[in-house]
């Protein structure tokens, strides 16, 4: 699956639909489709919300492939400012009371919990995040 999204939050719906279609075509389990859908929704929403400081149109490139060695590999590439989510997103406070828990900041924590490996690279002026999950 290859999809190029514009920096518009309305594109998330198209992305989610594409992941569901890909899962059906490849006979992926509901658990894997859930994990890929959630990871892409969280990562791409963050990019569309924070990666660009100008008002110009930017494109986000999303690829999902099933590898012969029984794993699914998801890549997201954007031309926003350099941002390594693995280093720059703080771990959420999971132990506070209801009053102490902030609203937000959980998206990338959920991605880490649903995928088996994550890797970030800054390459040719772009952010490239690679996420993989065993099938």
């Amino acid at each position: 699956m290859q999809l190029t999204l514009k920096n518009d939050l309305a594109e998330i719906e198209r992305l989610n639909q594409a992941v569901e279609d890909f899962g059906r075509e490849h006979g992926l389990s509901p658990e894997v489709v859930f994990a890929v859908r959630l990871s892409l929704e969280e990562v791409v929403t963050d990019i569309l919300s924070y990666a660009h400081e100008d008002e110009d149109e930017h494109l986000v490139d999303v690829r999902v492939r099933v590898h012969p060695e029984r794993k699914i590999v998801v890549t997201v590439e954007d031309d926003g400012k350099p941002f390594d989510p693995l280093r720059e997103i703080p771990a959420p406070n999971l132990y506070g009371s209801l009053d102490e828990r902030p609203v937000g900041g959980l998206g990338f924590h959920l991605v880490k919990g649903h995928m088996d490996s994550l890797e970030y690279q800054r390459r040719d002026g772009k952010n490239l995040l690679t996420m993989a999950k065993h099938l």
Partner: protein
Amino acid sequence: MEIAQETREGIQVFQVQGKIDASTADSFEESLIRSIDEGNTRLVVDMAEVDYISSVGLRVFLLAAKKLKPLDGKIVLAAMQGPIRKVFTMAAFDRILPIADTTEVAIQEMS
């Protein structure tokens, strides 16, 4: 996503069906907040037919719970499917929000 709402034993019960995600979380939030603003302080959300939730969905539950606390109110989540429960546990929301196995149990515990 579809939401059906009814009153049972003075408790507002929301039956949610489908996906709570970036496209639907806003209308779900509106339904819960409107109900609280109308004076309802005991809410049960039947999650049996919810098959997907992302962080924007978690956000809605946290906002509702924070709004209910000073009103001495409560929101209970009932009948979550495995993958949804996994998201709640991962976010440690099971520490701050009451969870019940069924809607009936949630209503009993509240009334």
